[in-house]
């Protein structure tokens, strides 16, 4: 049943996800939104791993493992990012990325 879905369809989906993430990353001011966009890009990559594993090397599980691993890493990363965002909020009372310019000079 799964094999009826062509590879290209997955790749189109992930491309859309990835560029949605890129767009969000570049255009949003809110740091949480930026973080979400980042997750979107990561997930697009994860899906690619699994899909390529499934279609190109069906007997192996390396891609799937890697995807799981990346999910774990991104979870940790998100936790840190949120901690940073909370700290920034405590300092400047908002979480707009262009307001965080204290370290610039």
């Amino acid at each position: 049943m799964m094999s009826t879905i062509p590879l290209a369809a997955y790749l189109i989906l992930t491309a859309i996800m990835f560029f949605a993430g890129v767009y969000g990353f570049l255009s949003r001011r809110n740091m949480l939104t930026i973080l979400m966009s980042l997750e979107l890009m990561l997930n697009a990559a994860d899906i690619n791993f699994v899909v390529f594993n499934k279609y190109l090397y069906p007997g192996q599980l390396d891609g799937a493992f890697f995807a799981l691993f990346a999910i774990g890493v991104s979870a940790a990363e998100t936790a840190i990012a949120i901690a940073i965002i909370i700290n920034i909020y405590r300092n400047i009372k908002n979480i707009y990325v262009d307001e965080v310019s204290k370290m610039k000079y």
Partner: protein
Amino acid sequence: MMSYTLIIVVLPLLMFLFLGLLGSKMKPVVAGIIGTIGMSAVTLLSWFTAATYFFSVGKVGETFQAIVPINFEWLRFTDKLHIDLGILLDPISVMMLVVITTVSLMVHIYSFGYMKGERGFQRYYALLSLFSFSMLGLVVATNIFQMYIFWELVGVSSYSLIGFYYTKPSAVAASKKAFIVTRFADLFFLIGILLLSFYSGTFSFDALTAPTGSILGKTITDTFMGWSVISWAMMLIFIGGAGKSAMLPFHIWLPDAMEGPTPVSALIHAATMVVAGVFLVARMFPVYYFGAPEVLTIISYIGAATALFAAIVACTQTDIKRVLAFSTISQIAYMITALGVSGYGGHEGLGYMASMFHLFTHAFFKALLFLGAGAVIHAVHSNEMDSMGGLRKYLPITHITFLIACLSISGIPPFSGFFSKDEILVAAFDQNKFVFASLYISAGLTAFYMFRLYYRIFWGNSNKVYKHTPHESPVSMSIPLIFLATLTLVVGMIPFSEFISSDKTVFHTHIEWSIASMSILVGVVGIVLATVMYRKENSLPDKIATTFKVLYTSAYHKFYFDEVWMFVTQKVIFNGISKPIAWFDRHVVDGFMNLQSTATNYVSRKIKFVQSGEIQDYAWAFIMGTVVIISLLIFI
């Protein structure tokens, strides 16, 4: 053989380190006693060395041989050229050992009284030890480079002793002046050494001065501006000696150096360091005589001119230490002149012997004069003649010893100065009548200004009222005076030519009464003149000063040598050379560097908007960059 002489040199160094490092932890008097005991040991050892050398080991037949007890390689440049450190004993170095240690010991003892209660008493004794070490190292040097090393050390210790009262601006200025002037002359000395060793391939005195040695045996044909390179080298070396020995025109530092404590002046600026130039020429004498006779002639003229010049200036000075300083310059010029007119070997080398003889006697009577002047200054707390007079009643010992020294320097028999000065005059008379005339006039002037000094201190206004009654100096100051006075009385009797001669072979001299009587005559005339003018206070000196106003004023201002030097350095060198160089440095060298930094600064300010600090800008640039690179990879 005689390797114990190493102790003579090393012990003062150890004393210096000991007193310099630990002196501040001791009571002043303890430091002084330790220094003096060390110096006494060195003195005894020097006398012992001299006795051993002159009477047993040194003499082989009729010739004194040079003994090198210790010599080790210190620095090697090439196969042939290396710097050694060692000890060379020959007649002149052994004689210098005796002079230096004896005067130094006297100064050590004297300073107990003179420097009592001064701040930095321990430092003073440490520096005296340093000076003694450097001077002893200088005279026993086996090669010219070792001599140069100690030569500079002597300069440094002289610098720190002149500036001993470092809270006094004039002392600081004087110490700087002494150091810079002598250092300037030493630059020529160093160039001369390098030139000489380049052509001769050795530093060693042994090889340089042997008549058949490396430099004199082979003909050096290279010339520069009409002179052979050896003449140039020897001339440059002499300039170094002239700087230390205060010859014209480098004499300007010595009168100012009197800012130092008086015993220091006695030790360094009368007896030992300032004769280093004479010693240098004496040490290199065969090279001068065989390699550069024209330089020797120049030396004799410089010496004669300096002797006369300094004697004239000394007649007009009113600071007693400055009178003595000019007297020292004049007497050292005598020694230099004697070397300049000397021949080589036997009776021809009379000038050489006379020079060393005068060095020997002068060291004692000039140290005595300085120490006597120190006792006077100690009593009246002033250097100026005007605040003295009639002191013979208050300072009997100082008076008698000072008189002995004055008679000696004036060349009155049987005091030691007569014998040595007579030999110099004989040597000059035989060689060069012009030089002789200059020395002869200086001899008369010497007698005049010394007795002017004597009368104005001890006679003159006898009813002068002092705020504090002057008192005779403590026993620690009297003993050196008496000891040196005794030496002044007896050392003239030493048959010096039996010990020291230009070719180290003994010869016999006798007093030539024709010249001796002339020199006694001129000395007596000088003394009588001084007696008439200064015995009792009268208006005669003022009248004479007004009559010869121009001469008097210019002599009083030391013939404006300081002003000329100031003009040359401040106006000519500073404006003509230093300022353009400074301008070049500031505007071209610095300017180039500044241009670079300004340009960098400007560019960075212009492009810093790229670094906005906004993460999204960076991400945007990153993505666009990636897109560009990928499209390049795909489409090209």
